[in-house]
């Protein structure tokens, strides 16, 4: 059997949803960031698949490459901030980040 576009998109969608759920449920900051990665990669799968099946063509591939790079950059900053948070709170439990509210 040959996989068609929709199945790829389905995978992408699943990844996306998993990522979102992960972000929304994980209490560990690192976990949340992993959720972000999942979301981005879900999109990436879409791009690649579209590049293959539609006349989006190489643009899709390029796009996904850019995304990977940006994701790395973002992850770097995010981890730095998480570290900073840990320095101040001695934890990376995001639920402890509840001083600012109202």
């Amino acid at each position, binding site marked *: 059997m040959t996989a068609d576009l929709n199945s790829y998109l389905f995978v*992408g969608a699943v990844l*996306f949803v998993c*990522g*979102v759920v992960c*972000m929304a449920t994980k209490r560990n*900051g690192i976990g*949340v*960031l992993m*959720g*972000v990665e999942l*979301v*981005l990669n*879900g*999109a*990436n799968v*879409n*791009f690649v*698949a*579209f590049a293959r099946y*539609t*006349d*989006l063509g190489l*643009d*899709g591939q*390029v*796009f996904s490459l*850019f*995304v990977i790079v*940006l994701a790395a*950059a*973002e992850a770097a*900053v*995010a981890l*730095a*901030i*998480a570290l*900073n*948070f840990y*320095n*101040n*709170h001695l934890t990376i439990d*995001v639920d402890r*980040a509840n*001083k*600012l*509210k*109202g």
Partner: protein
Amino acid sequence: MLFPQLLDKLISETTSLSLPGFSVELCLSATIVAMLMMRLVNLDRFVPTSVTAVLGAFAALVFTWLQFRQIGAADAIVSQKIFTGLLIHDTFTVFFRAFLSLFLLLTIALTSLTGIPDNEDGPDFYSLLFGATIGLMIMASANSLLMLFVGVEMASVPSYAMVGFLKGRKPSSEAALKFVVYGAGAAGVMLYGISLIAGVLGTVDMSLLAARLGEAAAGGTGGLSDPELRAVSLGILLVMVGLAFKLSLVPFHFWCPDAFEGASAEVAGFLSVASKAGAFGLLVRLALALSGAPGTESLMIAFGVGIGFIACVTTTFGNLAAYSQTNLKRLLAYSTIAHAGYMVMAVSALLVMSNSVQAAAMQIDINRTVEGLLYYLFVYLFMNLGAFAVVAIARNHTFSEEVDSFKGLVGQSPTLCIVMLICMFSLVGMPPFGGFVGKLMIFASAFKAGDIHWFMYVVVAFGALNTVFSLVYYIRVLKTMFMDERPADARPVPVHLGSLESIYVVALAAFVLLLGLLPQFLSATAGAAAQSLAKF
């Protein structure tokens, strides 16, 4: 075509066309490099980084001025794609470059006045600032979904860091964490939306979107029952969400108050104005790129009305939530949300009008809408920065940003108070201050859009109602400053008329007043910028 020729063509085009068009960004990047280099060789001991930054920003301003000259010289409307159509270089872009570089300059001036950051961190901080600015400029000039995403990320990532820049401060780090996670999530969502749009329409070139959309809609009902359209509209929705995060529209505003409270007033001021400006530039481009496709008018109008609805909710929410705030920065954060609501009214009017059947006939009003938005942004720059500047300056003396710490301030430093008064009444939208003119322009266009869709009248009504609401909390602050007695134990705030701080804020206030009294020049410029987007 053979590869070498292609290469030649590319090189020549880049050197002759793209790079000049990109000169401002290049200048900023150069400044970043310069600053980092200087620290490498310890030059910054002798030349404070802020000076370098000021020089860089000023140079950028000069470059934009040159670009204005060049565009003004051209007889036709300039709208050229650079970097093989990734970016677009037109009056609109230049306007935003000018706006952002001016704002950059002012922010640097403020930071160097209030001494945030200290000299060691200067290069890092200013590099982040410049980087974010470049990202915002790219957002405003994006012509490709790729650049759209890149711009957003380039603008966001440094701002995450800036929010968390106050080292060793719990609120700061917490704010940064929230901001980064929220922002990353929003970016992911937006990216997914982009993937849908790009995939279904088969292009990342925004200038082609409308046409492709039309093809996609062709034969279909033009409604959501058509699977392609459904996917696209979902994609559009997700992108909008991503931008809504940057504009802090309800219900994607949660990061805003926390981040502002955690960050220093300067950074908050920067975020509240600059990132909004970039996002609005992008939103306008996207909206225009999507609108006008045959067969999808009603869908786009629906989007416009939806944005209008969001606008109403946002303004009302922002104003009401601001009522009970005791921290002035937080209060201003909510007012920022409210003002984003006002401004996004213009975008909804834009969508509604440019998808109406008589769009061609309404071109003038469409331009007016964009013009109003740009004008409002510009006024907002001065009045909001003014407010945040006052907060920052007072904080340096009282070490507090609570509203109560401003009690009876008028007795000690009337200048600050009067500037605050001007800024806040301008935020309310009272003549003769600039805020009134901007608000009037936006309401006017929304009102005009009412001819197309009745809901826009509701939007105007909400805008008017919120004007009254907003008065209450602004005036509460003013009441505290002017009518209460200064507590005996309060720390003194000796800011005299001669001091640099005073001159700085007075200048801002003067601009607010000037934009209210003589709107002609700026509105003409903004009008030209809007003209460059015109379709018809």
